[in-house]
């Protein structure tokens, strides 16, 4: 799970072009949206596509996606239980 | 605006006809052109409906008599067919007539070819003649070369308001005396790039669209081209040509709200309509019919509906969206709908807003639902695009 979290942080930084950020700057439990890292709805769409492409995760609705994308920890947990890739 | 600008010719090609007469016939018979994609191989084939012109690129090329080594994209071929009809309709034939401007509009340009051969260009020399059609300007060049236009020519690309903006710029070139005649309008072909792009925005409908309906789900994309010939008074009198109608008002403004969504109160749309009316010294009460942008997306129709209600102080004239017939033809939409507005004026008839069932809960607006004979003098046509770009055109009967 530690490796997966690191991998997710690296992918997040690359996918969202967060220049100047490193995986060490993101804590596992930091809130990704709103006041934490400060991502928005367009970033959410990018992350949803990344989860599908790299882990085979498909969400049935946006609410489900929103709760999974809360933090690196919540993403890692969901991926571990549901990944098909 | 000191003098109205005369319109002396028009040409069109869309999913409901290959020329003005065919389009008019389909409009009157409530015959739409919406179907499944046939000429493009796409995974979206079974999930979306489009206004596709049922002619392959080979057939279009044959219609135009292009030789085998041509580099016309589908966009350029559709544009040429429509521009050719407009020139013929206006009776422009001599070299002096063709010392005429050309203001084209497109958003796709040659992307239909670029997406097809993006990697093949490297391996296959035979496709390389299409590399430069990626430039929208090269598509405009192809059309103007074919029609033999020798005056000032350029291309406008402001998403879904593009062709309206081409009309506006052409009109201003005449008003400032820089041109006497100018062909204005737009063209866009269907392509995977746009179909997939709109799909990622989740604003495509999987069904026939119903603009201004409470249960509308999104738009159907379409393809097509249409052009008008605009002329100064001196020019059409000298040529002895009777105008079809007049452009009596126009405006462009910006929502400045979001990259793709319109503001809920339709600020940009409101401003565009108000400015167009003001320019033409036209009272809102004098508008007999509105050909709405009406894409059937939840966002546009709400925004446009609000803007229209405000402009007309809740006494909204008869209105309809003709996009259920043709699909949303993107950069060509405004000129295709300008032709429909002119046909409405000429024949004193309003074309219906197909597929409508239930009015929107936000206001009391019901579009025209059947082909309706109406005495009218003045028509307003709206076109609103990405980047908040909003344009309005007003046409008057001769």
């Amino acid at each position: 799970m530690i490796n997966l979290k690191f991998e997710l942080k690296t992918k997040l930084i690359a996918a969202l072009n967060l220049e100047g950020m490193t995986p060490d700057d993101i804590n596992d439990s930091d809130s990704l949206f709103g006041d934490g890292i400060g991502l928005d709805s367009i970033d959410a769409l990018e992350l949803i596509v990344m989860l599908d492409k790299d882990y085979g995760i498909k969400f049935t609705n946006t609410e489900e996606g929103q709760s999974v994308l809360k933090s690196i920890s919540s993403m890692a947990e969901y991926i571990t239980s549901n990944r098909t890739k | 605006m000191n003098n109205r600008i005369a319109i002396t010719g028009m040409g069109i090609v869309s999913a409901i006809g290959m020329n003005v007469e065919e389009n008019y016939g389909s409009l009157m018979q409530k015959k739409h052109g919406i179907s499944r994609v046939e000429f493009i191989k796409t995974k979206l084939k079974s999930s979306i409906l489009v206004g596709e012109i049922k002619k392959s690129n080979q057939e279009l090329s044959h219609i135009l008599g292009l030789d085998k080594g041509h580099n016309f994209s589908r966009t350029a071929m559709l544009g040429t067919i429509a521009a050719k009809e407009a020139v013929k309709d206006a009776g422009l034939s001599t070299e002096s007539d063709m010392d005429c401007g050309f203001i084209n509009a497109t958003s796709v340009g040659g992307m239909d070819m670029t997406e097809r051969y993006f990697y093949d260009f490297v391996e296959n020399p035979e496709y390389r003649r299409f590399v430069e059609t990626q430039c929208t300007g090269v598509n405009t060049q192809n059309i103007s070369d074919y029609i033999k236009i020798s005056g000032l020519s350029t291309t406008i690309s402001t998403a879904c308001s593009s062709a309206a903006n081409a009309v506006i710029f052409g009109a201003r070139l005449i008003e400032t005396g820089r041109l006497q005649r100018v062909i204005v309008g737009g063209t866009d072909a269907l392509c995977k790039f746009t179909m997939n792009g709109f799909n990622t925005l989740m604003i495509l409908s999987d069904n026939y669209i119903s603009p201004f309906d409470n249960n509308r789900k999104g738009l159907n994309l379409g393809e097509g081209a249409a052009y008008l010939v605009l002329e100064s008074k001196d020019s059409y009198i000298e040529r002895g040509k009777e105008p079809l109608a007049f452009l009596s008002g126009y405006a462009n403004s910006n929502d400045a709200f979001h990259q793709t969504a319109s503001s809920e109160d339709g600020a940009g749309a409101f401003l565009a309509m108000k400015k167009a009316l003001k320019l033409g010294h036209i009272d809102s009460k004098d508008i007999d019919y509105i050909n709405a942008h009406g894409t059937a997306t939840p966002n546009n129709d709400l925004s446009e509906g609000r803007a229209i209600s405000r402009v007309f102080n809740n006494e909204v004239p008869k209105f309809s969206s003709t996009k259920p017939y043709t699909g949303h033809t993107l950069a060509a939409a405004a000129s295709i709908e300008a032709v429909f507005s002119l046909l409405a004026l000429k024949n004193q008839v309003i074309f219906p807003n197909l597929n409508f069932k239930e009015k929107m809960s936000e206001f009391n607006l019901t579009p025209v639902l059947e082909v309706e004979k109406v005495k009218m003098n003045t028509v307003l046509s709206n076109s609103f695009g990405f980047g908040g770009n909003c344009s309005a055109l007003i046409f008057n009967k001769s």
Partner: protein
Amino acid sequence: MIKNCYINGVGCISAQKTYDGTFLNEIIDHDNEPVVNVVKPEYHKYISPSSVRRMSSGVKNGIVASTLAMDEANIEQIDAIITGTGLGCLQDSEKFLKCLIEHDEEYLTPTPFIQSTHNTVAGQIALMHKCKGYNFTYVNTSSSFNAALLDGLMQIQTNEAKSVLVGGVDEIAPHTTSLFQIIEHYKSSTTNKNDSQNGQSKGHVCGEGCAFFVIESEKKESSYCEVVDVHFLNRLSHKAPNEFIVDFIRKNQLELDAVDAVILGCNNDVSFDHIYDGIQHLFSTSHLLTYKHLFGEFMTSTGVATWMACQIFKTSSIPKELVLQEGHRPIKNILIYNQYRDRDHSLILLKNV
């Protein structure tokens, strides 16, 4: 009554350092490389980190250049925003297209699609300044900037607007560059550098950049010059370039010897540079300047030429690196002539204030 049109603010991002108020004090030698990128400004000074990360070069450069121009003209609100671009937002187009093709229509996201629309720069600037005014984008190969400037000029002359932001912007994207190299519109790494420098090879150096101007009906302290007239023709079917130029000059009530400096769009393409030879004979006593050997060639490079003209008027000097032929009189009028592959012959006439 026709109003005068003054350039009151400029902003330029290019392959030379053109954004810091200096006029080519330190020339960067690109050593005839086939592709030259811009010298980047500090984007974070102008754009928030959350926005800048999504933006392509063209959008970033456009925002910086337009901000510089508006700051210099000392205005916060603008009546109209008009841009020109030859190839549009290529980087996002390529990104979306690559994903479309490589993943066979799967895993697509909306951001690059939205940002690939040609009027993205104009739309972004409008959003930033909450400008609800007229907003047009011209995308017509190498006359795109000229069309934007003509539109702006018309707005000012007819008093439709008092302040207009006009700009030209183009960006480089790798795959498109390689395609234009394959068809020899651009020079490539296999082009002999000497041949390239001496205009003995096909194609031109591929550049990028942007130039924005605030044009106004009011003359200000910051006024660089007046925009007198703009013209362009897709194809010269009935006249040679010389005639095209002479007709334009005379239409503006001038004679040829009143044109003190001519900025030519020579780009070292052996197939087309000869078009400029005849023009040199027309202006035997004027300063003749070239610039694409410093900036590369791109579809809206006449914007950079316009920036150069502004600097010449302001400093009353011409860096020697630009001089093809020296003239011997002070500069009151500057003509910018450009063509691309014998298409889009375009002219801009500027006058001192």
